[in-house]
Each structure stands twice: as structure tokens, then as C-alpha cells.
């Protein structure tokens, strides 16, 4: 007999994917990504229920109106993510997770997580236009193509933003077919909107400890909203399985570059060391021209380490990224060197109540050699928690509600 704490039921869908955990029975067959997908926007912003996994990932940087943009401490950094996991049985619905993380002026990094089932409409994602929601959090695309983001959590803060894409959609990998492992089926469809001009309202978090009081406010925040402008980056990915066997995690960089350009890089690490050959990146020029960058042409030098005081997990902290073979698609200049520095050390998410993955999702400062303009980006580091990787995969907690903020 295995004892299972059902307050920690059980769902290891995110890392293992559903295909491997699929029991016999009336499991519906999910599609496996293959090259040659015919993209169609705005339809493809929406949900793809024929695939088991899907997520919408927004990261960005906001500046309160009137604040000096050259002062780093004035910026607000945010991450809002929606995950969808199909349960492989007819009518069993989905599991939706959402994470919201914010750091900013006098607001140390804080995050909240949310889970819901979707069988009763409390969470869901539309099949024709992008509209994904989980209780009061949502990310929707309006007919004019702009994205509306709304999310708020006690102790974290809130956003109500309108973001207009000015670059992309950028199809990553082979025309949006992005390999995540050596096997043919280990892939996802993946595109990015690397630059979205954003305006809206930021709701500062209440100053008191959220664990002890004051959840009685209609929208949770007591402080007055602040008008903000900034840029967001959106990634949308769907597929059937995240990581292949023997793979422990990934590093991902989504970096805005001076002159309205952008660079996305990811590498999937092997447990034995090194990373898979399929790791790659996409450079997007200001006019939308893209360049695929195989990761073996990229040199990544970590500049230091950071040990999480919460979990003891050690993460690399800051990088020098050089791509000597890079040739700019429009100017023809070669070489690309970037210095990437986290804006603050502690940007670790411990999502015990939803995806049960401890990961680092942090805002970074980007300095590009030869340019004065400094830009922002985000980095995601997954799978550094070796204890977690060893943990019994079924021992995952699932419960509802928000307030994971700390």
C-alpha cells in the first residue's frame, strides 16, 4: 500500500507530461507535435485542447508614470503565467495553474499561485480567441490584437494591463516546432511576442503581512493604483510532453536588446551533465527578421552563484553570453556579447500548492557590448532542486485558493 496524502494529491503532469502517466482506459489521445504546423493568428493565441499541455507566459517590466527610467530601482518586474494540463480521461477536465510574481520599488520579490479545475467554469481557456482565466486572473486578446492582463494577490500586488504586440509573433525553432529532446515526439509548438508596448495600472501590495490580516478588501489591495507603462514579452507553448528521459531541467533567457531587438535562448540540461543538441535560440531584429541560433554556437559563462535561503538550492547568478558566429540579419555585423545580471537575487518560486516545481524566474539587466542602452529581460532556471528531482513524483499537492505570497 502506498500512503498518499490527498491534500497533496498527485499530479506530476508538468514535468513528466501526461503521455507517460497515462493509464489504460478511456484516455483520449492527445496530438504529438510534428514539424509543419500551419500557424494561424490570432487563432493560435487561443487554446489547443487537442494537446495535453499548454502555457501562456508573460514577463515584463513596468515604470510608474513620471519615474526616472534610468534608475533601476524605479522599475516593476512581473511574471504572469497560466498553465493548462489535460487530465487524460474523457470529461475529466483540466488542471489550471497560474503563477503571479512581482518585484519592484520597495517591494521585494513575492509570488502567488492558483489552481483550479475548470470543470465548473471557474477556470478555462477559449478555443477560438485567446481568453484564459482562473478565478479572477485572466489573459485575453482583444479583437485589435492587444492583450489584457489582470491578476492580483494579497501580499504580491496586482496588475491591470493592456499590451500591444509590436514585434512578432516570432516562431521559434523550426517554424514554431521547438525540439525539447532527442526523440521525435519530445517537442512543442512555441512562438513568442518579444515586445509588447504596455500601459495600465499597477496595484501595489498592501504593506502588512498577508498571512495575518486584511483579506477583506474587494480586490485585495489597499494601496491606490499606480499608472504604469512598459514592455511585456509573451511566450505561448503547447504540446504533449515537456522533458524527455534523463533530462533534468532547462535554462531559458528572454532578453530584450537595444534598438528594439530580442533574443530568446534555451538549453535543456542532461542529468549526466551538458545539454541536448536540440537546444537553441531565436534572434529577432527590429523589423521582425529572425535568426535561428543553435546552442552549440553559444558560450554561456556564469558569473556567480546564488543559494536560495528558502530551499538551499544553488542557482547560477549572472552570465556572460557570447555568440561569435552570430551575423546580424540586416546590418551584417557579426558577433554578439551580452552581460546578463539579475536585478535582485531572490526571485525563486516555490509552488508547493500548484505545479510543485521550485524554479527561478527572474528579471535581469542586459548590457550588449557596443551599445549604451541597457535593457531588461527574464531568465528561467528549472530543475536545480536536485532533492525535488528525486522526490516521489506522485507526492504533489493540489489545492485551491491563492495567497502563496511571501
Amino acid at each position: 500500500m502506498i500512503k498518499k496524502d490527498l491534500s497533496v494529491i498527485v499530479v506530476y503532469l508538468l514535468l513528466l507530461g501526461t503521455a507517460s502517466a497515462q493509464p489504460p482506459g478511456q484516455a483520449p489521445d492527445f496530438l504529438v507535435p510534428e514539424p509543419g504546423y500551419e500557424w494561424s493568428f490570432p487563432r493560435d493565441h487561443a487554446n489547443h485542447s487537442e494537446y495535453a499541455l499548454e502555457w501562456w507566459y508573460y514577463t515584463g517590466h513596468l515604470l510608474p508614470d513620471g519615474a526616472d527610467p534610468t534608475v533601476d530601482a524605479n522599475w516593476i518586474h512581473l511574471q504572469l503565467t497560466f498553465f493548462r494540463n489535460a487530465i487524460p480521461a474523457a470529461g475529466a477536465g483540466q488542471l489550471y495553474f497560474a503563477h503571479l510574481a512581482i518585484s519592484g520599488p520597495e517591494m521585494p520579490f513575492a509570488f502567488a499561485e492558483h489552481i483550479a479545475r475548470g470543470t465548473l467554469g471557474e477556470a478555462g481557456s477559449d478555443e477560438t480567441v485567446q481568453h484564459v482565466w482562473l478565478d479572477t486572473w485572466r489573459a485575453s486578446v482583444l479583437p485589435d490584437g492587444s492583450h489584457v492582463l489582470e491578476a492580483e494577490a494579497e501580499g504580491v500586488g496586482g496588475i491591470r494591463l493592456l499590451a500591444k504586440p509590436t514585434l512578432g509573433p516570432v516562431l521559434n525553432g523550426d517554424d514554431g516546432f521547438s525540439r525539447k529532446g532527442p526523440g521525435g515526439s519530445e517537442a512543442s509548438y512555441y512562438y513568442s511576442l518579444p515586445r509588447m508596448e504596455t500601459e495600465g495600472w499597477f496595484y501595489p501590495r498592501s504593506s502588512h503581512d498577508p498571512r495575518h490580516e486584511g483579506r477583506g478588501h474587494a480586490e485585495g489591495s489597499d494601496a491606490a493604483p499606480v499608472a504604469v507603462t512598459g514592455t511585456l514579452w509573451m511566450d505561448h507553448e503547447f504540446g504533449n510532453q515537456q522533458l524527455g528521459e534523463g533530462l533534468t531541467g532547462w535554462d531559458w533567457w528572454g532578453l530584450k536588446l537595444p534598438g528594439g531587438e530580442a533574443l530568446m535562448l534555451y538549453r535543456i540540461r542532461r542529468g549526466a551533465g551538458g545539454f541536448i543538441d536540440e537546444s537553441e535560440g531565436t534572434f529577432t531584429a527590429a523589423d521582425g527578421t529572425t535568426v535561428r541560433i543553435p546552442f552549440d554556437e553559444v558560450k554561456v559563462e556564469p558569473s556567480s552563484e546564488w543559494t536560495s535561503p528558502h530551499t538551499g538550492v544553488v542557482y547560477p547568478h549572472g552570465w556572460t553570453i557570447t555568440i561569435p558566429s552570430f551575423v546580424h540579419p540586416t546590418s551584417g555585423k557579426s558577433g554578439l556579447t551580452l552581460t546578463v545580471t539579475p536585478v535582485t537575487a531572490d526571485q525563486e518560486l516555490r509552488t508547493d500548492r500548484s505545479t510543485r516545481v521550485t524554479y527561478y524566474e527572474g528579471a535581469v539587466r542586459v548590457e550588449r557590448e557596443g551599445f549604451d542602452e541597457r535593457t531588461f529581460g527574464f531568465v528561467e532556471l528549472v530543475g536545480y532542486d536536485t532533492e525535488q528531482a528525486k522526490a516521489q513524483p506522485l507526492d504533489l499537492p493540489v489545492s485551491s485558493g491563492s495567497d502563496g505570497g511571501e
Partner: protein
Amino acid sequence: MTLTARIVLRGWSTRPLRTALAILGVAVGVAVLLAIRLANYSAVEAFGRTLEMVSGRADAEIFADGEGWLDADLFAPLSRMSQIQSAAPVFILDGRDERSERRVRLLGVDLATDAEMRPWYRAEMDDTMDALSLFVHPRGVLMTPMLADELQLESGDWFGFRHDGVIDSIQVIGLLEGEDVAKAQTRDVMVMDLPRAWQLADTPGRLHRIDVIFREGVDRDEAIMALRQWLGDGIRVELSGWRRPQAQKLLASFQLNLTALAFVALLVAGFLVFQTVNTTAVERRKNAGLIRSLGGSARFVRRIFLVEGLGIGLIGSMLGVGLGMLLARGAVIAVSQTVESVYLLETTAALYINWEAVFTSFLLGVVVSLLSVGPVALEASHVPPRESMSRQVLEQRIRVGLFAYIGLAFLLIGLYLLWKPWTEHPIVSGYTSAALFILAGALTTPWGLGVAHAILTRLLGRRLGSFGRLAVGVLKRSRHRVAPAVAALATAVAMWLSIDMMVGSFRNTVETWVTNTVTADLIVTSGSYFGVGKPELIPMDAFDRLIGAEGIADVDHFRSVRVPIDGLPTVIAMVDMESVRKQKRLSWLDHGTIRGSPADPLVAGENQVFISEPLAFRTGWGVGDSLDIPTPSGTERMRIRAIYYDYASDTGMILVHRPWFVEHWGDDRLESIAVYLPDGMTLSEGREHVNAVLGDDFEVSVFSNRDLRESVLQVFDNTFAITYALRAVAILVSLLAVWGGMMALVVERRRELAILRAIGGSEKQVMGRIYVESGLIGTIGWGLGTVLGILLSLVLTFVVNKYSFGWTLALRMPWDQIALSGVLMIGAALLAGAFPARDAAKQSIAQGVRVDAE
């Protein structure tokens, strides 16, 4: 080292035993206060958890008023409401086990998110199942172990589930754990993921209930009003079990009583410290005379006393803090091990160190020690040196009579406050009278000893013999030394007994609450049970058949309707008043002054009703008031005959007699029938019997209630284990106090005993005398303590609880504890006398006589 410190230390080293006893006295006082305060927190925590386990975590329940189900479309907007932290959908499918025909309830819940709502999500699952099976297995359920037992199923087994005329094969994929105490709704159930349950029943989109937890800080009543307004007519929103005022009151009352205990402990602790330090200081008085005759100033003498008091206070308090923490931890661990092993609770194990409590206990020890030397220091520095060297004078100075008068005055004021408490501040009032009683006890002790002496000599007269007279005489002659020991003993006994009475009475009240919440042995219903939707009704024939049947002790029925009275939706319940009259199952808050059962006029057909206490409280209606009750056949004016206690429902209820209801509603069908079994009949026998009596003529199901009630009480008992542990701490402290006091007394009297030996008393006679004295002191202290203890309990019950909650605890006299405390206390007194007595009897006479001159 200063001269002051030298003198103090010298005194300590020449009389180590006495000094140790003084320090021990302070330590014990500080320890008891700290231990009780520290353990309180854990006790309240455990109690709250227990309440939660009994009735679930939800704050409120939403269900349909009429048709029995809610539209699932309600759920999403509901879960987005700002007041709601989480919401959980519940779908219910009733059916039967195909083989045993046993009624089984299937709960369809969202297994991904439901864990927050229900305390029982821990399952032992079959090896072949992984957790995903919960979502994808088309016919997999988790089952309570009790149900699995009854159906003789194990994890992995398949069985036939008959519902709505079809039979579905269902597999038990796991057993729910740690829920054996969970509320009635979750006891006899199996759980399935909601979409699967909908598929099984083929009724997608239907919910029977939505449980919600509000965000912290949200006012529950306001939130419920908002929900009601938003949901509109036809949907009911009610506070769920443990959020109901009655349960909350229970929790608050428990908390208050523990606080009151801490207060009693504070008094006792303060008193013990004063006692020991003061006694020691009196001893040292002679030194003061010596120092002054050698030219020491009055200020110098005062300083010596204060330094000594401070020294004893500091050392004693430090030891006390350590001892208190040990005691509290011991109590908490002992209790949590039981609770944890049985109920998988984890919070009690951690002793919450409340530094404020540590600090105040420490401070109490030091401050009271200093205060205790104050009067002696002052007196010793003023009296002429020669006089201070003589003990006689001091004894004369104790103004026995004056003390007694003051004590008596305190007693009277205390009694007055008990009789007519200051109702606006019942707690202040209660604490004041408690403090007055304890002070009165201490102040009247010397006088009381004189009285005891007079009574004993008069009663026994010559039969006492010379040694007997000497022994009894100690009460009068040495009362300055005996009184503190007696008073210490008395306060210790008082603390013991009042703690016990509080715990016992509180447990009684809980029992009443439980029995009132969970009544009868078996409940016969059709369709939905436990307040989910409107159940189908049972024909009155079923009731008639049961009431006439053999082998059934008693039967009650229940049927209710909701009508607006004064604009408030009010429940009218039809009951059998003849049964009420016969069974006396209702207890009355107010039934006027008329003789006979309050049910008489109702049975006689008068237009009278009973209303429940919560309804009376809410509306201000009283006995004799008239109500206009709308009925299908017109409005009827009814007079309120009596108000009854209702621990089970806070919505308020009007009880009417069956014939009147049938006449006006034209409907005699029932919602449920409560069956009471004769003693000795088991539940399964009872259930079979009821099924046999009813035969196949009614589509009803029979639920058992008795084992639920028992398991609930058992959990409460486990929670109370911590209060029993507190009592053990109190007993231990009491014994220590008595032992210390007696030791001090006998040690001091060595010289007297030596003289007794010098004038020809035998060892045996000396020892006998000490035993008699010890026994007397023990007995008197215990007697006084019992009286004080009862007074304190009365204060706790009738002032603190009653005026804080309008809730009278059922006072229970703990005769066993009174007897036990007597045996232990007198035994301790004898034992405490024994060692020094043997010493004293055996000591060299010459040295003994000189002992005082050391």
C-alpha cells in the same frame, strides 16, 4: 563581595535546607503559572482543531431551498466573489450496495481542489493505482474505512452500486484516512471525482451543495448576507457546523476558562511565593536585631532583607521558568502523542513558547519575593534590637483578630460579587471575587486555627491526653508558623479542585452539545439527509408503524416548513408533544411559572408554541408573547408557552404540536424519524430491526447516529487530555507546596521537640506528636481548600461563564477529586513531617536545644 552579600550568603550556607525550601517555593509558584499558561495555548489550538474536525472546515454552505440541486453555472462566478477564498462543489448520489442493500452515499467533489475544504483527505491507495487514477478511473472511489468495513470491501475490490434503477460496478481504489471523526456528512460516504460522478449519474451540471471558505478578515455574517442577496430566492446560504454561533461560543468559552485558570494559577503562584519568602524573612529577623545591636543602621538592615528576598526571588524564578517549561512540554507531548496517533493532528506537539508568559512568570516570582520581605524588613529595622531577637513579641504582633475581620470582609465582598456580579464586566468581577476568596482564606487562617483548636479541645477534652493536648495546641500556640503551611495547602487544593470542576463541567457541557447536535440512535429518512436540499417526505404510516413496534425504545419525528414571521424566514417544526411530555428531551430556558409539563397546553390543543433559545435571543420574544404565524389556511395567532435550549441549530425554530400542523398545512408527511433503541441493542441489530418493521413499503434509509456521537465524544476526551495534564501539573505543584511548607514547619520546630525530649518525652512520643500535628494541618488545609475550591468554581461557572456567554456550564461536584485530594494532601503532609520528625526525635538533645542559637 559586599558585607550585605556576605551576610546573606552566610545565612544561606548555615541553613541550606530552609533556604532551599524557600527557593523551591518560589520556583514552584513560578512554574505552575508558566506551565499552565504555556499549555493553554496548545489546548485551545487542539480544541479548535477538534471542532473543525467534527464539523469540517467550511465557513458556509450553499444549497438549494426547493428542488434539491444547484446549477453548476453558479459555481464559477461564485468562486470569483471577493469574499470567498475557496469554494468546493459537492454533488451527491444516493444508492445502495447491491449485495447488502445498505444505503450508500456517493460524494462527487473536485478532487484536485477539494483538499482545502475537507479534513479527511489522506488515503491509503491500492498499489496498482497511481494518483492519476483518481481523475481518470471511470468508476473509482475512495471510501471511508467504516463504510468499507460494513460493506466488507477492501481497497481494490469491485462492488455493485445500485442507483436510479441501474447497477454500476464500482472499484474501491483507496480508503480515506484520518477521518474517523469527521462530520456526519463524511462518515458513511465514498468520494469520486466530480466529472466521473456526473457521468455515473448522468446528470452533468448539477450540484447539491457548494462549501465555501471566506477570506481571512471577512465578516462572516456580512459575507453570508451578500451571498444571499447575490444568489437570490430559492438558494440558501447557512453558516456551516463549526462556524455556527453555538460552536464558536464553545470555543470561546473554552478559551476563557483556560484564561481563568491561568488567573487562578497566578493567584496561587503569587501566594506560594509570598508564603515561603515571608516565612524565611521572619526567621531572619533575629539577625536583624543582632546587626543593629552591633551598630548596623536601619537602612543596612533593610538592605540585607531586600537583597535576600531578591536573591531567593531570582534563583527561584529562574528554576521556576525551567521547571514550568518542562512541565508544560511534558503535558503537551503526552497529550499530543495520543491525539496524533489516533487523529493525525500535528499542531499540539509543538509547545508554543509565549515569551510574554515566561517573562511575566519570572517577574511575578521576583516582584512578589521582594514584596514579601518588605513588611518584615520594615518592621525589623524599626523595632529595638532586643525585641527583635525575641520571637514571642512577634507572635503577639500578629493581630489575629484584625486579620480575621479583614478576611471576613473580603469573603463577604467576594460572596456579594458572586451573588450580584458586575454584569458589564463579568470577567473583572469574577477575577476580583476569586482573588478576594483566596485572600480571605489566607487572612482568616490564623483565626480559623484558633477556632479549630477550641473545637478540638472541647470535643475531645480529656481524652486527648497530655501529648494529644500538646499536639493540638500547636494550632493555637504556633499558629504564626502553622498558618502559612495551612494556607499554602488550602490554595493548592483550591486550585486543584477548581481546575477539575472547570474541566469536568466543561466536558459535561460539550457532551450536552454533542448529544443535542447528534440525537437518537438511528435516523430514518428518505432521499437526501443532512440538510442537503429538501428531502423527500415519508408517510406518517412509517412513524405509526415504528411507534407501535416492539424492540424500539422511542420514536420521534421531524417535519419543518419555513414561513416568514415579522419578515424573517423562520422554521416551524412539527413535533409530537406527547412524546415531548413523556421523554423530557427538551430542557427549558424559560417555561413560565405554571405547574406541569410545558407541553400540556399544546397537547390539549391550545394555540401555543415553543421557541428555541437562539430565536428568542434573535427576536427578543419571550414567554407569553404572541406570534402571527401564516399558514396555508390563514394566519393563526399563537402564544409562546416556553423557550427551550437548542444547541444544535442557530437558525431558530418554532415547535408546534402535530395535530395543529396537520390541520393547518393539510400534510402529515415527515422528513425524518428518530429512533431510540433499547439498552443493549447494537446498531446493526437495530437497523435490521427497523428495516424489518418497515418492510418494503417505504423507500427509506436508516442512518446510525450513536457511533458517531461516541466517536465525537472520544475526540473531545482526547482534547481534554491536555486539561487533565494541566490538572496533573496542579496536583504535582500542590504536593510540592504542601511538602515544602511542612518541611519548613518541622525544621523550625526542632528546638521545641528537643526540649520535649529533654523533659522526658520518648522518641515515639515525639514522632507521634509530629504525625498528629501534620495530620491536623493537612486536614484543616484540605478542608479550607475544598471550600475555597468550590467558591472559585462557582465564580468560574456562574459569573465568568454565565455573563460572558449566557452559557451556564452544568456544574459537577468532583467528589472523587475532593476525596483524592484529601488522601494525597494529608498523606503529603504526614510524609513531609516524617523525615524531619525522625531526625528531630533522634537528634542529640543538647544540640537540639541549642539549635536556635546557631
